[in-house]
């Protein structure tokens, strides 16, 4: 057994208390610095505005989660609570310096991806819209990839079943393909296309005969057309005669136009005469009125002369 050696007292340290105080100061500085940095990192020194996002289901959303805009975090989830109507209220703190990215028309989406957590994203289509006010409440849209999976699988299964039915040996598609094969075989034979169209080869032969006769008919029609051409477009043809007739008609139309012009001038004169007659009629009316007035004045003058004249008759009737 070994005995413990007697420990030697350590040598005195110069400026011991100062060095110890320096260590303490370093420790306090580290702790204070760390605390201040963490407070800064948590956004304690930032002015924020509040945004309330309302979702049907806030599963996966956690306090401290970021609200991102164009990939940049611009807000932090401060609280999640249940509203009286059963909806989830996600309270987000948005620093004032980033709040201008959020507008009245901004859309908020809660993404649930297949791999990874949930993310909150904001989209502002029109950045000239009025800014989002403090304490605004917005409905959050849910983009859930996993929720669409069952529907996708169901649709895929239905599609596969349809494809299986289509590709079965007794399916309509297989029958159609078989018919198509027969058709192509017949098309490759003599008079294939015509036989396919008309049903059998005898009918196709009739078609060939009909085509020959149509050719003969066309040759005869060609001769007829030549003759008609000579009659219509020849030197004494219909076209030359028609042209002369048209020239004559033009001359006649010129004469008719001159005649009509003369009739127009006659009509203008008649209108002038009629206008003069109307004026004269108006003047006659005025003259008659004046004559009537003069006659009435003369009559009144004669009456007055008769009353004042010594031989005037007493025309007044007196009741005795």
């Amino acid at each position, binding site marked *: 057994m070994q005995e*413990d050696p007697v420990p030697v007292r350590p040598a005195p340290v110069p400026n*011991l208390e100062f060095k*110890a*105080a320096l260590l303490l100061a370093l*420790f306090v500085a580290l*702790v204070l610095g760390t605390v201040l*940095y963490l407070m800064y*990192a948590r956004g304690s020194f930032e002015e924020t505005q509040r945004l309330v996002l309302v979702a049907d289901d806030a599963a996966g959303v956690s306090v401290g989660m970021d609200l991102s805009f164009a990939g940049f975090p611009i807000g932090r989830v401060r609280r999640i609570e249940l509203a009286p109507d059963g909806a989830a209220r996600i309270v987000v703190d948005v620093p004032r310096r980033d709040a201008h990215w959020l507008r009245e028309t901004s859309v908020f989406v809660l993404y649930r991806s297949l791999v990874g957590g949930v993310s909150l994203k904001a989209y502002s289509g029109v950045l000239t819209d009025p800014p989002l006010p403090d304490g605004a409440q917005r409905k959050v849209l849910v983009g859930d990839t996993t929720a669409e999976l069952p529907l996708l699988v169901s649709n895929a299964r239905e599609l596969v079943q349809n494809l299986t039915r289509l590709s079965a040996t007794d399916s309509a598609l297989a029958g159609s393909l078989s018919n198509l094969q027969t058709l192509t075989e017949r098309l490759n034979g003599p008079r294939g296309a015509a036989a396919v169209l008309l049903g059998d080869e005898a009918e196709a032969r009739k078609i060939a005969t009909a085509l020959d006769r149509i050719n003969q008919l066309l040759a005869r029609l060609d001769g007829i057309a030549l003759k008609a051409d000579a009659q219509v477009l020849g030197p004494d043809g219909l076209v030359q005669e028609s042209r002369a007739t048209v020239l004559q008609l033009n001359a006649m139309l010129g004469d008719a136009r001159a005649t009509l012009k003369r009739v127009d001038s006659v009509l203008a004169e008649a209108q002038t005469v009629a206008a003069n007659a109307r004026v004269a009629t108006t003047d006659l009316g005025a003259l008659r009125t004046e004559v009537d007035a003069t006659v009435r004045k003369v009559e009144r003058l004669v009456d007055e002369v008769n009353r004042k004249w010594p031989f005037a008759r007493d025309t007044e009737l007196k009741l005795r």
Partner: protein
Amino acid sequence: MNPTTSPPGAFAELARTAGAWFVGWWRTVHLTALLTVLALSPSSYRKQHRRALARHVYLGTAQSLLWFTALSTLISLVVIRIVLVTALSYGLSQYALEMVVRVLVLELIPLAAALFAALRCTIPLAAEIAALRARGEWKEAAALGADPLRSEVLPRVVAGLFCSLMLAAVSCVVTLVVAYLSTYGFTTAGFEAYTRTVGHVFNPAVSLIFGLKILFFGITVALMPIAAVLDAAPRRRTNTSVELQGLVRMFFALVVIEVASLVGNYY
């Protein structure tokens, strides 16, 4: 028949061991209470005690600080590099930084700091107390009317606690800086994003648990080895079983604190 191999004998042995275990823990708790009262008492910081306190604090911390800072920088660098490269190869680089901060700063570095403080500071200090008791100086001081608990134990416990807290603080700051430099290089461009990630990890609950964990780690490594020495009878020879028992108790307490912090953080 050996009495310990018979069922009643085994039961009695088990009861005796459990009793000793509980008594040991009770004495540790009692010593903690006594030292807490002494530490909070202004009379413990009078001039005659202050010099001893300053010496233990300075000698206990200064000799470990540089080495541990260098060691933690190296370990951080390696672990951060491994995490970043692995995350990049799986296409999960956006989670790498958060993982580094969580794994290193929150979990590994405080535990490493506590263990380093125990190895370099508190276990040697406990050995000094054992030597004092072995030489009979403890009894002599008590006979002269001095309180060796205040004059000898308290400065060493405070020095051990301070060493543990200081190492944890320095290494956490160094690791945060190394993590930033490893991820973004020597530029300030990533400071906003990095700060946001750190703020995301250190929410109020995590910060509180982190602080409490470091404090309890410090108390454990400062107290357990000395408590184990004080619990045993003074001997002139090295009492290996007592020291080992103290170390086991210390590791047990560290594991319990670590598990409690993990439960608090992730459940």
